[in-house]
């Protein structure tokens, strides 16, 4: 143990604990306390109600599809940005962050207008029988948009650092590009991809602003869990709001643990190689 010579621990730690306690821990504690006052039977009745379960299915299902899309598209985007040169590449690289920088409500109305039945993209899609806005597909589009940067940004640095000698070895052994990608490169990218997937999925589960505009918000079919909690509040059913919010909170904690585990593993993996 090193001798402590630097000053400022009481002040810095004091401010930190005060802020974390007051801003983060207090509200979350109050939410858990409120949900806890319900009693097990009431709590279970609310969180396992038909409408709540349908909202979990809509939220988790859409998040899974959006993440699967981003896994493929994000991987392709990262690949193109790292491996190829083309005009406008730096602009594309910068604009990848737009979904992070753009307020979710703005993204919500923009995507809705774009994918509505009379929108630029919505009308051709509707004419071939694929309505997007106000359907479950709309939720997927909103989630895919808001979580787009995660997989790109976790894979990009790993792909940049990938040792060319590994590919060359594969090529000298006569492997086709596709075989080398699948058997040599993909396993090396897998930890970063998994970390990106968990971040993307977690973000999609919690997304609200972008989704409520484009989803039809119909109970049982296009109502996400966060919206259900919001609706219960507007109905002054605070206990139900607390119970449903607590489900989202527990899910977030689980996803946080998974994400940190996967990221630590991804980092360890890249540092070793």
């Amino acid at each position: 143990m090193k001798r402590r010579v630097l000053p400022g621990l009481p002040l810095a730690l004091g401010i930190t604990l005060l802020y974390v306690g007051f801003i983060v821990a207090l509200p979350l504690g109050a939410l858990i306390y409120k949900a806890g006052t319900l009693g097990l039977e009431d709590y279970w009745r609310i969180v396992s109600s038909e409408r709540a379960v349908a909202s979990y299915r809509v939220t988790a299902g859409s998040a899974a599809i959006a993440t699967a899309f981003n896994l493929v598209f994000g991987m392709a985007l990262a690949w193109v940005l790292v491996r190829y040169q083309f005009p406008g590449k730096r602009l594309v690289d910068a604009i990848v962050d737009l979904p992070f920088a753009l307020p979710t409500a703005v993204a919500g109305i923009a995507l809705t207008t774009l994918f509505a039945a009379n929108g630029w993209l919505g009308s051709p899609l509707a004419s071939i029988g694929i309505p997007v806005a106000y359907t479950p597909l709309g939720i997927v589009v909103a989630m895919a948009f808001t979580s787009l940067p995660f997989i790109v940004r976790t894979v990009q640095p790993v792909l940049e650092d990938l040792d060319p000698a590994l590919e060359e070895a594969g090529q000298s052994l006569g492997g086709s590009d596709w075989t080398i990608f699948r058997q040599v490169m993909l396993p090396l990218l897998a930890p970063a991809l998994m970390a990106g997937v968990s971040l993307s999925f977690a973000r999609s589960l919690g997304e609200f602003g972008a989704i409520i505009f484009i989803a039809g918000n119909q109970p049982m079919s296009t109502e996400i869990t966060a919206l259900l909690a919001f609706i219960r509040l507007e109905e002054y059913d605070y206990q139900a709001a607390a119970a449903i919010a607590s489900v989202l909170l527990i899910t977030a904690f689980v996803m946080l643990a998974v994400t940190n585990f996967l990221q630590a593993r991804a980092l360890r993996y890249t540092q070793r190689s």
Partner: protein
Amino acid sequence: MSASPSGKPSRVGDTPLVRRTLITLVLLVGAVLVLAPLIVIFAQAFSLGVGAFAATIAEPDTRHAIMLTVIVALIAVPVNTAFGLAAAWAVTKFDFPGKRLLIVIIEIPFSISPVVAGVAYLFVYGLQGVFGPALADANIQILFALPGIVLASMFVTAPFVARELIPLMQAQGRDLEEAATSLGASGWRTFWSVTLPNIRWALLYGVVLCNARVMGEFGAVSVVSGNIRGQTNTLPLHIELLYHDYQTAGAFAAASILTVLALVTIVAKVLLERQGAGRRSRVSVAAPVLLAEGQRP
């Protein structure tokens, strides 16, 4: 990589067919998913002409929403910055029990749905909350007023500055600060002259991202603000209100202000990344720090 003597490309995926197909595909999907929404915002904002656009912006409710958004950012961002600096100083310059837990707790808001944050604040300051009745007796209004909006904004952005500073200060170590203090510099002097110059770009990076998020926050603010037009409507909430009032052009005019802010944020981000801020591989602060801790002999 140069081509091998036989003229064959030397790296995987470098054949012209694969390259062109992938670039085209990615640009096409990117244009649909990212560029098209951006264009739609401005096309809709000016769909009724520049005059209508200016009229929407000049409307008292819109101006009030802009003002409120700026005020919230002016309070929440500096406070959050001070917290981020304090947290990073405490976590990276000292060892104490519970440090890892503290780092994880700081990161929590990043993974929580903004709606959950809003609901949680309701159970602290609302009438049905822990402090609600006492606050009502004392006639102190937190919810459906500026303090509630500021608090909710501070919750969602709590990790933003800290997560930029902690990994950087962790990597920089304590030697410089220890040298400064052993030469007789005070704590503040050490911080201002030694630490701050080393972390300024990362700090600014965190501040820029924090500001963008505060000004654009929707879910959490929407729960705690009460959406009172001309009073507790921030710009994102005002956009929702106009949109649901079928004033589409007005909603997009207001949205275009926040879009410009987003674009400015991205430009600032790129410029700061050139100064070495914001290593891209790091999306979570806890994992790298925990890893560094674990590897320490």
